[in-house]
C-alpha cells in the first residue's frame, strides 16, 4: 500500500483544529504548535527590530544627526542588533521551521522531548520580556557586542536586564539543540539512514552541535559582565585588575559560531528548495552534508578574526586569518553544488525558488567579502567600518532571512493548510532582493572609504552613499510588509492547500496539509534516498510525487 492513499483524503482533524482555546496552545507539547508559537513571537521581534532599523536609516540620511540625540541613536542600533540577532535570526529557522519539520522529515510523531520543547519557548519568551523591559524602561547602549569595560563599568543604561534576557534565551537555544540532536539520532523512521536524511536535517544537526557547544560560553561571558557590573569584581575592567580583551575572546568564541547558527539552517532550507524546484537530487549530497559539519567544527576556531586590531598577538592573528580562509572552502563548495543542481533540471520559478536564487547571489557576495575581512592587511583598514556592516548583513539578511522567507513560503501550505498568493509572492521576493542590494551594497563602498560603524554623525562626503542606502531600506521595508500582509490574509482567504502542492519528495509532504496532531497514522518505512523524483527514473508522472514509502 502506498502513502498516497493516506494523504489523499482531507482529514477531519489536524493539529490546528484538534483543540481550541488559549490553554490548548500555551500547554501544548505538539512540535508543530510550538513552532507556530515561535513564529508569532519572533515575527513580533522582527518587526520591532525592523522599526529600529528604519529609525537608524532615517537618521543617517543626513550627516548631522538631526533626528535623534546620540544617546538615542546608540540605543537604536543596540536594540536593533540585540533583537535581530538573539531574538530573531538565531532562533528563526531552527525554532520555527526546524521545530515544525524535523519530526515530519524523520517520520516521527514528535521531537524526542516534547515538554522540553515547550520549555524552550517559555525561556525564549521570558528572555524576550527582559529585553523588552530594557527597551521600554529606557534602552541599552552598549552595542549588541557588549564590549567591556564599557558595558561592565561605564554604560549607565539597562545592561543587566538586556544581558539577562540574552542569557535566558541562550538556554532556550541550548535545549532546542539538544532536543534536535537526540531526535535525529533516535527517532528516524525505519529505513531512514543518515545518508537518506534530507539536507535540512543535516544542517540542523550541525547547527545544534554549535548551539550546545557555543552558547554556554556566551552565557558565561554575560554572567561575568553582570558580576563585574553588580559587585565590582575585577574581571574585564583594568581599573579593577581585569582584562578587557578577555571579554572579546569569550564573546566571539560564541558569536562567530553563532553566525553559523544563523546561516547553516538556511543552507538546509536552500538545499530543499533548489532540489524541489529543479526536480533533481541535490548535486553532491554527501559533500553538502559533510560541509555543514566542517563549517560547524571549523567555525569554532576562527573567532580571533574579530580582533586583528585589538592588540592580540600577531601570531594569533596569522593563525586566525588562515583558519578563516579555510572556512570559506566548505561554503564555496555548497554554492557550487547548488548551482550544479540546476544543470539539466526542470526549473520552476515559484516564490520559494526566487528566494533561493536570491539567496545564492547575496550569500555569494557575503561570503566573498568575508575573505576581505580574513585578509589581515585589508581587515586592518575595513575593520569596524561599514564594510563589516554590509558584509554581515549580506550573510545574515541576504542569506539567512531570504532562506527563512523562502522556507516559510515553501512550507506555508503544510503549516497552515492554505496557499499564499503566488503573484504577490514573486513580486515581493523581487522587491526584497532589489531593496536589499540598494540598502547594503553602498555600505561596502562607505566602509572602504573609511566610514566607521556606529556613527551617529558623519562627515559630509559620505552622505550620497548613505542616502542611497536609506532609500534602499525603505524599499526593503515595504518588501517585508507585503508578505506579512498576504500571509495573514491567506490564513482565511487562501486557496486550500493539497497535501503536496510542489510535488516535493520529503516525508513531510506525505502527510495531509495541515498534518494531524501525531503526524503519521502509521510509522513510514523509507526505502529510497532523499530527493527521489519519479521523472528522474523515467516513470510516468503521478499527481503527487512522494518518496516510496511503505506503511507497515
Amino acid at each position, binding site marked *: 500500500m502506498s502513502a498516497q492513499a493516506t494523504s489523499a483524503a482531507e482529514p477531519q482533524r489536524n493539529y490546528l483544529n484538534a483543540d481550541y482555546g488559549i490553554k490548548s496552545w500555551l500547554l501544548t507539547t505538539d512540535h508543530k504548535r510550538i513552532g507556530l508559537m515561535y513564529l508569532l513571537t519572533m515575527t513580533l521581534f522582527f518587526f520591532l527590530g525592523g522599526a529600529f532599523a528604519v529609525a537608524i536609516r532615517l537618521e543617517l540620511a543626513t550627516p548631522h544627526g538631526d533626528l535623534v540625540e546620540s544617546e538615542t541613536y546608540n540605543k537604536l542600533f543596540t536594540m536593533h542588533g540585540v533583537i535581530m540577532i538573539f531574538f530573531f535570526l538565531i532562533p528563526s529557522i531552527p525554532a520555527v521551521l526546524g521545530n515544525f519539520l524535523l519530526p515530519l522529515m524523520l517520520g516521527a510523531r514528535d521531537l524526542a522531548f516534547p515538554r522540553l520543547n515547550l520549555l524552550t519557548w517559555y525561556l525564549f519568551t521570558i528572555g524576550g520580556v527582559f529585553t523588552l523591559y530594557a527597551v521600554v524602561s529606557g534602552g541599552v547602549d552598549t552595542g549588541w557586542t557588549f564590549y567591556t569595560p564599557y558595558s561592565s563599568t561605564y554604560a549607565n543604561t539597562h545592561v543587566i536586564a538586556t544581558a539577562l534576557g540574552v542569557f535566558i534565551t541562550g538556554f532556550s537555544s541550548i535545549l532546542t539543540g539538544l532536543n534536535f540532536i537526540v531526535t535525529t539520532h533516535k527517532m528516524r523512521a525505519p529505513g531512514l539512514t543518515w545518508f537518506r536524511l534530507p539536507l535540512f536535517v543535516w544542517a540542523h544537526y550541525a547547527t545544534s552541535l554549535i548551539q550546545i557547544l557555543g552558547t554556554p560560553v556566551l552565557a558565561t561571558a554575560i554572567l561575568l559582565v553582570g558580576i563585574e557590573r553588580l559587585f565590582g569584581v575585577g574581571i574585564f575592567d583594568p581599573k579593577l585588575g581585569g582584562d578587557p580583551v578577555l571579554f572579546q575572546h569569550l564573546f566571539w568564541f560564541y558569536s562567530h559560531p553563532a553566525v553559523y547558527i544563523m546561516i547553516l539552517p538556511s543552507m538546509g532550507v536552500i538545499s530543499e528548495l533548489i532540489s524541489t524546484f529543479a526536480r533533481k537530487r541535490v548535486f553532491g549530497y554527501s559533500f553538502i552534508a559533510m560541509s555543514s559539519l566542517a563549517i560547524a567544527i571549523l567555525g569554532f576556531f576562527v573567532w580571533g578574526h574579530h580582533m586583528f*586590531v585589538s592588540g592580540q598577538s600577531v601570531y594569533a592573528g596569522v593563525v586566525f*586569518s*588562515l583558519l578563516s580562509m579555510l572556512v570559506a572552502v566548505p561554503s564555496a563548495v555548497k554554492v557550487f553544488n547548488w548551482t550544479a543542481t540546476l544543470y539539466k533540471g526542470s526549473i520552476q520559478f515559484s516564490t520559494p525558488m526566487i528566494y533561493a536564487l536570491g539567496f545564492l547571489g547575496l550569500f555569494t557576495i557575503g561570503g*566573498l567579502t568575508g575573505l576581505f575581512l580574513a585578509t589581515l592587511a*585589508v581587515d586592518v583598514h575595513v575593520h569596524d567600518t561599514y564594510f563589516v556592516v554590509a558584509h554581515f548583513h549580506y550573510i545574515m539578511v541576504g542569506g539567512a532571512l531570504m532562506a527563512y522567507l523562502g522556507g516559510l513560503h515553501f512550507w506555508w501550505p503544510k503549516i497552515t493548510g492554505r496557499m499564499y498568493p503566488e503573484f504577490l509572492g514573486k513580486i515581493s521576493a523581487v522587491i526584497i532582493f532589489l531593496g536589499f542590494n540598494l540598502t547594503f551594497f553602498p555600505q561596502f563602498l562607505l566602509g572602504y572609504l573609511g566610514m566607521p560603524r556606529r*556613527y551617529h554623525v558623519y562627515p559630509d562626503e559620505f552622505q550620497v552613499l548613505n542616502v542611497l542606502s536609506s532609500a534602499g531600506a525603505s524599499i526593503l521595508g515595504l518588501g517585508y510588509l507585503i508578505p506579512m500582509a498576504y500571509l495573514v490574509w491567506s490564513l482565511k482567504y487562501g486557496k486550500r492547500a493539497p497535501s503536496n502542492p510542489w510535488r516535493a519528495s520529503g516525508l513531510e509532504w506525505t502527510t495531509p496539509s495541515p498534518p494531524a496532531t501525531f503526524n503519521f497514522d502509521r510509522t513510514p518505512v523509507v526505502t529510497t534516498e532523499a530527493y527521489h523524483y519519479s521523472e528522474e527514473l523515467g516513470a510516468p508522472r503521478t499527481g503527487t510525487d512522494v518518496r516510496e514509502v511503505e506503511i507497515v
Partner: protein
Amino acid sequence: MWQDAPLFPESASTISDSVDQLYAFLVVVSLFFAFGIATVVVFFAVRYRRRQGVIPARIHGSVQLEVVWSLIPLGLSLVMFFWGAKLYFATLDPPPGAMDVYVTGKQWMWKVQHPTGQREINSLHVPVNRPVRLTMTSEDVIHDFYVPAFRTKRDVVPGRYTIAWFEATKVGEYHLFCAEYCGTKHSEMIGSITVMEQHDYERWLTGVAAGETPQEAGARLFESMRCNTCHSGQDGARGPTLTGAFGKPVQLRDGRVVPFDEDYTRESILNPGAAVVAGFDSIMPTYEGQLSEDQLMQLLAYVKSLGAEGGDQ
C-alpha cells in the same frame, strides 16, 4: 596610484597603496566569482526552465568536480592569506628613527603629546615623509585610532599600551576617527591629522607652547616619586639599573625571559610583584592609583630614554 578613483579613500601613507593593491586583487577575484556564478545560474535557470515533457537528468554528483571546486577556492584563499599576512608583517614595526608620539584616548577626545612636549587635543600635526610611532592607551574604555587615508587602525585599550605607526607621504589634512564604539559621543571622537612639510612642522612647533617634554617630566617624576632611591644605577642598589635596559630581554626570577617593552614597564610600576627580576627581591612598592595615565606615559618616556642611553654606550 588609486588616488583618483572615486571608490578609494585618499592614499597618503607609505602602506596605503600596497593595501589598495591587495584590495583591488580581492575585488577582481570577487567580481569574477560573483559574475561567474550569477551567469551560470541565470543561464541554467533559463535553459532548463520547466517545459512540458522534458525530464530532468539523473545526476547525483561528481567527485572530480568536488575536488576541483574545493581546491580552486582553497588555492585562491591561500594566496589572499599569504599576501595579507606578508603585508601585515611588513608593516607591523615602524622603521627606525620614528618620531615618538604619545596618544591617550578618553571619552570622547584624543590627547596627544609630541616628543618635544607640545600637546594637542583632537588634532595631530606631523611632518611628511617621517615615520611616526604612536604609543597609545586609554583612560577609560576601549577606543580605536583610525586614519583611513593612512589605512592605519589600532585599538586603544585601557590598562595597556598599543603601538601603531604611519609615515605620511602627502601634505594635507586627514580624518582621524575613533573606530571602536565607546559610548554616547563615539561619533564625535574625531579629529584631524595635519601633514606638513618638515620646515612647516618645525615652525608650527615653535608656535605652540612646549612645556616639558615627556621625558623631562618623567625624569622629574622619577625623582619626586623616589624611584631613584632604588634605581640609582649604582652597584648594590636595591633595584635593577634601568640604563640600557629598555628593549632588551629581562631574565625573571621565575625563569621566564620577557621583553622590556612598554607594557612590561607599565606592569613593573603598577604591579611589580607580577614579574620580579632575577637577583632582586620583590620590594618595589606598587604605584597603582598614584599616577595618572599622563604621568605613567612620562615615566615610560623617561625609562625609554634611559634605555637608549645604555644602547649608545
